[in-house]
């Protein structure tokens, strides 16, 4: 892992994207990106899992890197194909490098948000607020990542179509992967810590919608015990 590479990822996304596209010295970048992806997701997962505490911290820390890397594993070939279809027939190495650089930028935003999430939990934030805060961190990370990918795509026809198609695929795959491996925060009113849950809960978007509704109306999660409700 190289600190100067991390610095470049944050400060010079256009330069990084160009290097990826031209396949110029990308191996150190890819190594750094993989390490950043795994470590940041691990720490963010641990912070999110600290809402429940105990073993949930370890499970969430273990599962979030799997979700992040798993999503990239599935999405990278799709990105390669989508870019080629819309007039950017890059080499696989270039496509993978751009995706990993984007992923690393995303992870660095998650890493920056980790203390905020942890602080919110430490100050007694309710389940729904933590869930929305985590979703907000993911959204900000996604935007940071997208900024690099868009620069990598460069000007020309098919850029918007590539971005929209890819974002659609990424949200679908990422959402589904995260949903399969839930829970990360824990379940309100249920003190048992589980690695996976198989309850029917309606999907990621539906759950985020419910949480937003409850936060805006100031209602606690229905399963939250009264003594712990905010």
């Amino acid at each position: 892992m190289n600190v100067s590479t991390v610095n470049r990822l944050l400060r010079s996304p256009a330069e990084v994207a160009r290097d990826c596209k031209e396949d110029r010295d990308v191996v150190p970048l890819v190594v750094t990106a993989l390490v950043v992806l795994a470590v940041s997701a691990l720490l963010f997962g641990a912070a999110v899992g600290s809402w429940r505490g105990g073993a949930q911290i370890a499970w969430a820390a273990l599962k979030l890197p799997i979700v992040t890397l798993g999503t990239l594993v599935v999405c990278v070939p799709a990105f390669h194909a989508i870019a080629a279809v819309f007039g950017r027939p890059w080499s696989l190495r270039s496509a993978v490098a751009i995706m990993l650089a984007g992923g690393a930028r995303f992870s660095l935003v998650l890493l920056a948000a980790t203390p905020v999430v942890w602080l919110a939990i430490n100050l007694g934030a309710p389940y729904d607020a933590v869930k929305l805060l985590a979703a907000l961190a993911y959204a900000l990370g996604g935007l940071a990542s997208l900024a690099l990918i868009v620069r990598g795509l460069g000007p020309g026809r098919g850029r918007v179509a590539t971005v929209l198609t890819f974002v659609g695929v990424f949200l679908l795959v990422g959402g589904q992967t995260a949903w399969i491996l839930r829970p990360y925060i824990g379940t309100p009113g249920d003190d048992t810590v589980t690695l996976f849950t198989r309850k029917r809960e309606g999907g990621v978007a539906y759950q985020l919608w419910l949480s937003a509704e409850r936060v805006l109306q100031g209602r606690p999660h229905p399963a939250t015990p009264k003594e712990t409700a905010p």
Partner: protein
Amino acid sequence: MSLRDLLLLYAVVGLACAVAVLRRTPAMGVRAVGSAIATMVVWPLWAPFALGAAPPSHAASGSKTGVGARIDRALAEAVAAVAGTPMSDVFSPRVAARIGEQVSRVAAHMEELEALVARSGFDPQQSAERLRVLETAGAPERSVATARLQHDSLLRLQQLRAADAQALDELAGLLEALRAQLLLARYSGSSAEGAGAIVSEVWARLEGLGIAFGDGTGANVGGPRTGS
């Protein structure tokens, strides 16, 4: 196909890629094992880099074609010629690697110079034409002097490039002679005294090239002097 089957297939492909990574690695070490493990776990992300070859970079391309390729080949064959013989002291793989490294740097500098000269505004013919036009038109002395300075500088750049290209070509010839000398010593059983002298000459030439570029390369090439 269930999720379990898919994961099993993923693991099998990952394992095969990891084995390929280990087989391709010339020397087994922590890096090789780390690369193999990374390949096994995230092969769609890492295998293109662990198994695929990087395209030649802009700077290195000059060293891998023409003279650069001759030098690389001569170095590799010279190392192979002395491998496992007492002459490996005269020309070790480490010495060859250092020579190769210096040659690559010089070739990269030359490529930069060529790219610079190829840009518009760096053509000595154009600058000569401009100078002639100014002189014919009776332009002020200051304008003519500036145009002359520009023309002289471009001519010097062109000469410098030609001289360095020739020096690199001579270096390639010297390394080919070194390879022949080492092969002769190996198969005739004679001493590698001549080869030692050539190695010293190679370092001297590299030093000269480094000084010509004025980048401190010369200071770095004072490497192992062997055989003299």
